[in-house]
């Protein structure tokens, strides 16, 4: 069967994934290079009874999607670096108040207004540490247009299951690049909805700390009449200054993600069994890495590839296993920034493994030839 084959760009793929994932609310503010996502959803959402709203800025956009999610709609916004900077206030709120939300960051060059139409991966650490306070971020990064569809759905699923904001990190090239894609068949991608309470209203605690750290989520209007705040709160949502309750809340927020790393974290490896050198890269750079590794293999060099799909949180244990591969001598970390994920790799490799940075931040992509040269250098 030929399936539904289309030539679409990454930003269209986000919209496609959002519709498959059951999106019913999008609040956004125009910004290059993410704007197509808003434009497509403005057209498509009302056709299925969903809501699109263009807000007055990115702070309002993230506020609106949090409100809509609390009212029961699967909600999303899309932006790029400067807008993401404004959204981190709301992302921190969504984390604290445990509101499922998806934030798409189509990365462009920074800092500041930087390079609106050029590719970058320089918001990698911002996706992890953007908002103030301790928190555990979830961020996913696709490498192709088709994977953008899949990971958009997955981002929505993770947001619903773990009641937390999830960032989808794409970039300007992936967002605007067109690729031939076979759209998923109906039912091909798993779609997960949030767990609703089945207890009477008088028993319900919106932020209940359960043995598995997952708490069912009622919506405003369901008859449960709960309180939501960004202040540190007890299980009912009321602000607290009691250290026992503060510790319980903040520990729950951490555990509800860190205890489920096996479910949340996806890492792809190739040829690591006998690799002397590994190339570690995510997103669009992983495409170049793949080609470089193939070229190296063709020259009988023992090179492997590591591709984080879940960028945050880091599955330390899994990475340590991968980096302990018996012949491994060096890891090349290729990034479109001045070196961000390289710190994560340095933290996790065994002492004898050398970590080499390959960075590019002149607005162009890292090429397979550049990576191949680096492989030859370290070998």
């Amino acid at each position, binding site marked *: 069967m030929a399936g539904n084959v289309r030539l679409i760009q990454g930003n269209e793929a986000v919209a496609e994934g959002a519709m498959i994932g059951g999106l019913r*609310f999008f609040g956004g503010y125009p910004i290059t290079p993410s704007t197509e996502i808003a434009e497509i959803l403005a057209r498509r959402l*009302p056709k299925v009874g969903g809501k699109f709203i263009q807000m007055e800025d990115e*702070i309002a956009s993230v506020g609106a999607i*949090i*409100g*809509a999610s609390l*009212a029961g709609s699967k909600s999303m916004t899309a932006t790029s670096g400067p807008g993401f900077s404004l959204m981190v206030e709301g992302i921190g709120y969504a984390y604290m108040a445990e509101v499922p939300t998806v934030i798409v960051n189509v990365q462009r060059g920074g800092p500041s207004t930087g390079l609106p139409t050029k590719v970058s991966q320089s918001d990698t650490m911002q996706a992890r540490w953007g908002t103030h306070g301790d928190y555990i971020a979830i961020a996913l990064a696709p490498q192709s247009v088709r994977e953008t569809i899949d990971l958009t759905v997955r981002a929505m699923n993770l947001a619903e299951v773990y009641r937390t904001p999830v960032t989808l990190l794409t970039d300007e090239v992936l967002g605007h690049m067109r690729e031939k894609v076979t759209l998923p068949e109906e039912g091909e991608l798993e779609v997960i909805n949030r767990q609703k309470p089945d207890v009477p209203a008088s028993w319900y605690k919106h932020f209940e700390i359960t043995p598995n750290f997952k708490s069912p989520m009622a919506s405003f*209007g369901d008859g449960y009449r709960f309180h939501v*705040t*960004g202040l540190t709160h007890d299980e009912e949502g009321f602000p607290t200054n009691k250290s026992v309750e503060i510790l319980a809340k903040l520990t729950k927020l951490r555990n509800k993600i860190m205890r489920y790393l096996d479910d949340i974290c996806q890492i792809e490896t190739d040829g690591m069994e006998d690799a002397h050198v590994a190339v570690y890269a995510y997103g669009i750079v992983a495409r170049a890495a793949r080609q470089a590794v193939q070229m190296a293999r063709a020259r009988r060099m023992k090179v492997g590839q590591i591709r984080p799909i879940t960028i945050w949180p880091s599955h330390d244990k899994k990475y340590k296993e991968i980096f302990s591969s018996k012949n491994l001598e060096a890891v090349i970390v290729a990034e479109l920034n001045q070196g961000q994920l390289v710190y994560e790799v340095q933290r996790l490799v065994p002492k004898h493994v050398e970590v080499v940075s390959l960075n590019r931040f002149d607005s162009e992509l890292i090429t397979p030839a550049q990576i191949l040269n680096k492989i030859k250098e370290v070998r």
Partner: protein
Amino acid sequence: MAQRSDITHKYLRAKKKFPNVWCAGCGIGIVMGSLIRAIDKLELDRDNVTLVSGIGCSSRLPVYLDFNTLHTTHGRALAFATGVKLANPKMHVIVITGDGDALAIGGNHFIHSARRNMDITCILINNMIYGMTGGQFSPTTPTDSYASTAPYGNKEYPFDIPKLAEAAGATYVARGTVYHVTQLDQLIYDGIKKRGFSLIEAFSNCHTYFGRLNRLGDSVKMLEDMKRNALPLKAAAKMPPEKVQGKLLTGVFCDIEREEYCDRYDALIQSLQGK
């Protein structure tokens, strides 16, 4: 009075949340009473009422009431409220905010919410100062008044809240005070009933900071000043301008009809779905 208290108590999270954070004599509690009586009189299903607030003394109000309550970040109450309302248009969404929250950090959301005309009732409790952080000047602090960050008098000019709201597109704009409670009950009642963006300025006293720093006396003295200084719009219309100068005008500034946002969006959905 006993009957009024009975009504109030029906809606309080009495066992969970009291005592409250407000200073003795604060006007915010009076606004809370007016809000409760307005909701009660409208016989709204409390499951379909969501109170949304930002940060500050006034924004602590929702936590005491047994509705769906959402205490957001500073200035963003209207943005969150927009999401709640559009996602569930059946919901009665009421925003409780203050002069700093709505007009300084939230000024952008304020004017755009008025322009968009979603059916949200915004109760702006104006005490002309930042109370929670200790008495800094706000966008409504009168020129030359004192505040902790205006030790030599405020060099700025204040917003005229009703004019701002009306110019931005609000369909219902009114001002009451915490002294004139019966009127405030009515203004909030009418504001909630109005299908469109409503703004009710509830003029209130912060004797703890604004009163103390400007030597205006205690809560009772400030309420007496409110009584003396307030002038109904209708009476003002018949008076010479020099007598209106410096008065606090109260009443309904604007009450117009404009199709509401969610209604317009629902009509769009209906037409796209061919219904």
